[in-house]
């Protein structure tokens, strides 16, 4: 039964995840240099956090803006446990993610009673608050950061080679994509889409909207922490500037450019944004200017982001194979 469910369609097929997996893993075996692999790590980390964020923003239509704060919880949590408590990488990572999950539930339970701009402000404040907390002098190093963090070791194998490090991020991203795809197509994803479409109607058909919103926000937060926790030991040093409000906004931009709710779009947008920041001179400011222009261009030309591109492609294909005025409707659907 080929249902035309726009929101869930991206998640229905396994093919895009497989393609993404082949590209992500394949990149490691292209004789890429250490610099390219490091960029790959940065892209992958951003992509993980952005995919997590798109579950809340795109999946449930809740405007959450503090994702970098949750990356920080994962990063600092993992780093602290590995260095000061000598916990192994995987358990430390799991603890960091669990901590973010708990904080996500607490924040979500309070903040998700708010809507729209108020929710955006509240989550932004949480992200900023976490950043400000990390700036305080103390055992986490304040503005000077936290270092050195030991390299991750998985089942006795130390990830020193840049390629191994990249592969760790790539595999994590693939797992996150698989999990997110499952979540969006399962009952939960449908109920999230119902909340996004019409919250009152969702309530009236029996969707427990508070529980669903808190759940998805906590999952988004945990995935953000996963990104931070995987990245921290690879960077060997972390500092609060990696988790500033600007980073939260960049992640939000990735979700928008990707197309709300599109996990693959978020990965593409993460690649675009991260690459831009690395190549545009001026480290940050000019890149953000360019980014602003790109966002404006997307809003004007491709309001559904990279996901909209796929939709336009499909409708062109439909027009090709079945000439007639009906083919145009899909484009209209995507651009409203």
């Amino acid at each position, binding site marked *: 039964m080929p249902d035309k469910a726009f929101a869930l369609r991206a998640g229905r097929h396994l093919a895009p995840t497989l393609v993404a997996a082949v590209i992500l893993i394949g990149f490691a075996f292209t004789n890429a240099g250490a610099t390219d692999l490091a960029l790959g790590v940065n892209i992958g980390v951003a992509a993980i956090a952005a995919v997590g964020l798109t579950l809340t923003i795109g999946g449930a239509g809740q405007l959450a803006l503090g994702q970098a704060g949750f990356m920080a919880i994962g990063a600092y949590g993992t780093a602290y446990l590995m260095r000061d408590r000598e916990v192994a990488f995987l358990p430390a990572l799991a603890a960091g993610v669990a901590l973010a999950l708990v904080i996500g539930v607490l924040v979500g339970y309070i903040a998700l009673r708010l809507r729209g701009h108020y929710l955006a402000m509240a989550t932004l404040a949480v992200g900023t608050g976490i950043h400000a907390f990390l700036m305080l002098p103390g055992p986490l190093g304040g503005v000077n950061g936290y270092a050195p963090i030991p390299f991750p070791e998985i089942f006795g194998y130390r990830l020193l080679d840049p390629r191994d490090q990249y592969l760790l991020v790539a595999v994590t991203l693939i797992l996150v994509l698989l999990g997110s795809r499952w979540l969006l197509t399962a009952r939960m994803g449908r109920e999230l889409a119902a909340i996004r479409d*019409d919250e009152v109607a969702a*309530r009236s058909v*029996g969707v427990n909207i508070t529980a669903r919103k808190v759940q998805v926000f906590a999952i988004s937060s945990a995935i953000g922490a996963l990104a931070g926790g995987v990245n921290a030991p690879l960077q060997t040093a972390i500092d609060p500037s990696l988790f500033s409000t600007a980073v939260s906004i960049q992640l939000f931009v990735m979700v928008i450019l990707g197309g709300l709710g599109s996990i693959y779009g978020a990965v593409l947008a993460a690649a675009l944004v991260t690459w831009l920041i690395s190549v545009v001179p001026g480290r940050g400011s000019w890149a953000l200017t360019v980014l602003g222009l790109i966002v404006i261009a997307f809003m004007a030309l491709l309001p559904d982001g990279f996901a909209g591109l796929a939709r336009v492609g499909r409708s062109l294909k439909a027009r090709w194979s079945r000439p007639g005025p009906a083919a145009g409707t899909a484009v209209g659907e995507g651009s409203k």
Partner: protein
Amino acid sequence: MSASGAAEARGITCRFGGLTAVSEVSFSAAKGEIHGIIGPNGAGKTTLLNVLSGLQRPSAGSVLIGGEDVTRWPSHRLVARARLVRTFQTVRLFSSMSVRENLMVAARTTTTPDHKKISAAQARERVEEVLARLSLDGHAAEPATALSYGLQRRVELARVLVADPAVVLLDEPAAGLSPQERHDLADLLREMRGSGVTVILVEHHMDLVHAVCDTCTVLDFGKVIARGTPAQVTANPAVLEAYLGGRHHRASEVDVTVPTGEEDR
């Protein structure tokens, strides 16, 4: 089932600041009864439905479903446990979903008769059953909001039926329907009554109220001004006054003709 009826409101009062939208409204509908809530615009009918469906906390009063006090229950529990579902004055379908998926959302939130969670397979089965029953199977894969208005209304009713409801609240289901569609709606409501569903019907179309309602409660300015069978209430002078007092622009839909009464406010 207690003697108090399948769905009962006791002294419901709803205040918004200085405005009392609903004032000490009580009514009771038995199992398998269609109970009409009628009254001019602004009488508090929709607010009352919002209270009954858990979207609005009343300032005072209580709601009983099957004899159980459900006043403070959240909507999702009302659906799962009291099997109470509703529709809205304006169609509210999930716009990103197909007709079938709209129904799936509703089917998955319900429980089996023994209060167990419904499985995906059971839900799917129920959805297909209802799609066929309402002749929507041909539209199942279409985006719900791309359908004609009449069909969207029908999808909304289908979304109610997949919940296997005990109590159904309908807010002006006939609004905007053609005479034929209204006729089909009346048939469906009678069918629901036949299967033991209690229907609370807010409606302006008096022909539909006359055709299906067993009893009615008439509201005006948030207060109950009359109750009884449709024939009784439309003959009630207080009702005529409320409808034809010059305030009601749809007075022509009341199928009685009397001279216009004095304006009461």
